[in-house]
């Protein structure tokens, strides 16, 4: 199939359900956090807003310690990342390194704000007439409002939309497939705010220049489907379809979802936009609606607080910067046997050292696990090459071989066996009878590959520089030799001329002398001199 046939097939997205390789059917554990309606927790005493919330660089703070900030005021800027805004009105108490919610577990620069309780908004600038606004204006509004993918990858929305527009997107896929166990924030959002999600989808579709919207949800989300298709916004819209897909982890992964909806694979090293597709999370779509029609920057999100380590699991609409401990307190605290705190789901989430880390754009779930949930760590055994990992790998890799290659420093093989295609979903890790922490190894391997690529690049650069210098030196030497040659020639010529002059003078003198003796010959001498 060539690329135009691919795009033709991609335009059929959602009309038939396909399969992806491997994956796991996991217990959902979602109902426990879906019992109560979503509420805003009371304001915490302090909000800690990290300046690093996206893929990319840390933002520059735009405020100083002691400044009064308004709710929604921009407090961090980072080109070309998304902006960061104050979630409350209050006083900036500090700008310092604090524990962050970040996979690295390292503290980073945060703006610490003490709310004044007045909840005074900054002046908002909505694009009320968005139907007539240009795509550029819509994209600029997304950047100004700090929008980023709320599914967990936090890729800046404006950048994704601009790329999608430039590469002629025909279909927008809204990802409502929350395939990790325990997490239910997207489900609750779809139940409670279907209008906003569909409005956001229409705005995104316009900004992308796309024709269709496909909203993908899991097959067990019956209520969600009713909510979405029963909403007023849905009734007024055209070319929006809601598609149920079977709940197999990691179907919520962008590449797997595209495979399920179209039967196509995103080319290795490519992006969904190669197929004319753009994926956005449903929560991002709702945030787009808020940003464009109300001018509201992204300062809060739905967060699931759940797990057997939480007394009363539920979903919150939490401001960024709210400490995790505050949310847990609002769920009546931990249970007695809480053992581990995780941001994200049990398959891909990262552990928190302490619960004073804040909620950020990427925090979809706070999961407190009890001792029974995680079990004692067991001894790691050698790989017996049983191949379960390869059977469940959604990227159709051979994890057992990659592990062997990484541990034996066979980096060329690691590359050719496609480590970079690994999505770190954790399926291989979960099924491994030898309990090898495969995903940890693969993260390490990816880092090592990047490092080696950088080193190679540096070595290549150094080699080039050396060769250029060699060439330059040879050239200079050659030039110098030529110059010397010319100079020598010049001197030789000069000497020759001098000789000639001397000879002429000699002749002239001879002539004068001769004339003095015999004036009759003088004419001949003069002629010869002229010649």
């Amino acid at each position: 199939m060539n690329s135009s046939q691919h795009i033709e097939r991609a335009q059929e997205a959602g009309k038939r359900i396909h399969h992806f390789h491997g994956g796991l059917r996991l217990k959902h554990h979602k109902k426990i956090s879906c019992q109560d309606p979503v509420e805003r927790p009371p304001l915490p005493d302090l909000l800690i807003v990290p300046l690093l919330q996206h893929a990319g660089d840390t933002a520059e703070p735009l405020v100083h310690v002691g400044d009064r900030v308004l709710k929604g005021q921009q407090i961090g800027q980072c080109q070309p990342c998304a902006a960061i805004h104050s979630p409350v009105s209050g006083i900036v108490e500090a700008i310092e390194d604090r524990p962050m919610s970040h996979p690295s577990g390292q503290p980073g620069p945060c703006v610490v704000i003490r709310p004044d309780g007045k909840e005074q908004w900054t002046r908002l600038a909505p694009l009320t007439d968005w139907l007539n606004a240009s795509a550029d204006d819509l994209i600029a509004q997304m950047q100004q409002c700090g929008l980023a993918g709320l599914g967990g990858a936090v890729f800046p929305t404006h950048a994704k939309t601009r790329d999608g527009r430039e590469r002629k997107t025909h279909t927008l896929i809204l990802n409502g497939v929350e395939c990790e166990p325990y997490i239910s924030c997207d489900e609750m959002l779809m139940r409670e705010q279907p209008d906003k999600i569909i409005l956001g989808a229409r705005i995104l579709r316009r900004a992308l220049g796309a024709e269709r919207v496909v909203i993908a949800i899991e097959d067990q989300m019956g209520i969600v489907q009713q909510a979405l298709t029963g909403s007023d916004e849905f009734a007024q819209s055209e070319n929006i379809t809601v598609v149920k897909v079977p709940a197999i982890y990691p179907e919520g992964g962008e590449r797997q979802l595209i495979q399920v909806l179209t039967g196509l694979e995103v080319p290795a090293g490519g992006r969904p936009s190669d197929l004319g597709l753009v994926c956005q999370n449903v929560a991002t779509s709702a945030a787009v609606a808020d940003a464009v029609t109300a001018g509201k920057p992204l300062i809060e999100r739905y967060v699931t607080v759940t797990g057997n380590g939480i007394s009363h699991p539920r979903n919150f609409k939490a401001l960024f910067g709210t400490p995790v401990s505050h949310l847990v307190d609002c769920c009546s605290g931990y249970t007695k046997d809480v053992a581990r705190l995780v941001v994200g789901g049990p398959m891909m989430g990262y552990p928190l050292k302490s619960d004073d880390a804040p909620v950020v754009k990427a925090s979809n779930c706070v999961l407190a696990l009890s001792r029974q949930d995680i079990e004692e760590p067991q001894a790691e055994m050698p790989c017996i090459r049983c191949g379960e990992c390869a059977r469940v790998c959604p990227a159709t890799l051979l994890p057992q071989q990659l592990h062997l290659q990484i541990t034996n420093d066979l980096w060329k093989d690691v590359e050719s066996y496609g480590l970079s295609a690994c999505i770190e979903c954790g399926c291989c890790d979960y099924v491994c009878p030898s309990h090898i922490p495969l995903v940890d190894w693969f993260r390490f391997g990816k880092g090592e590959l990047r490092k080696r690529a950088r080193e190679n690049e540096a070595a290549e650069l150094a080699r080039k520089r050396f060769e250029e210098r060699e060439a330059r030196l040879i050239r200079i030497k050659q030039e110098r030799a030529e110059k010397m040659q010319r100079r020598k020639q010049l001197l030789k010529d000069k000497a020759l001329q001098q000789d000639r002059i001397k000879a002429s003078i000699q002749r002239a003198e001879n002539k004068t002398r001769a004339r003095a003796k015999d004036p009759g010959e003088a004419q001949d001498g003069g002629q010869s001199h002229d010649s």
Partner: protein
Amino acid sequence: MTRSFDVSGAPHMPPQTTVAKVMLQVLLALVPGVLAYTWFFGPGILIQIILASVFALLFEFLMLRMRGRPLKPFINDYSAVVTAVLFALCIPPLAPWWISCIAMMFAIVFAKHLYGGLGQNVFNPAMVAYVVALISFPQAMTSWLPPLALAEQSLGLVDSLSVILTGQVPLAGGWDVISQATPLDTLKTGVEAGRMLPEIRNTPLFGDFGGKGWEWIANWFAVGGIFLLYKRIISWQVPVAVIGSVVLVSLPFWLADPDSNPLPLQHVFSGAIVLAAFFIATDPVTGCVSNRGRLIFGAGVGIITLIIRRWGGYPDGVAFAVLLMNMAAPLIDRYTRPRMYGE
């Protein structure tokens, strides 16, 4: 109030299974076949299984000690027991005890631990053990028993034990009374002597397809194998390729000359083909990793076995075939890497 937690990488869920559970399920799957074996050939096999297991665990213990490895996880992984049971199933039920001892030493010390222990061995330890014993002690390794139904005299548990430990048969006439060539042996010597196949098969030693008793043991091994398939301990590619290649390759020979070439199903139900298809060639450590690779590996085992049976010096060739394919496995893996997502 802030609270601290231990950190550990994802996934944050208890692991689904362990190496020990995998090995135990393999042992469990062998039970029906072993019971059938006992039913047809007497209790000798049970003694051999126990003997081999004890020696295997002993050498495993010594090697772990010498290599400074933790004892508990590796003794408890049952991999040495699986090796021992598979070996015991390949030797004559009344083979002397020291065969187990020497063979298990080769399996555990040389084939397993000198290559780096569990998961690192290139060759299937049970097959290394069997081949070492077969080549070194051909007489002891070929003194097979007839099925109980055909035996003039048979031995009970205590007598069997005494034969295994002392080598003395407590019956008038000694070994000659109780031992008999295997069906495959009879077949080979018969064909070589120029006799027609239907004539050879017309002895009580043969059943419907393979040897009497043997074919039923093979059936029960297949039942255990299907259990392993169901539990996804093994993948379908290896057994299908082994049995499929045996049938497909022997079919044209049989069609061309049914008088001197056995029926394909006779090949399948004779000797160790079924045991190998489900339990030996499926050893993940020494086999191939990709599905295509497993098909090639299994087909290789089947075809080499047929070649040895037809033209080789031994009546059966499964062990040699498995070891030869073990050697080829890394190369097969290299050329059968599955297509990656998006590639």
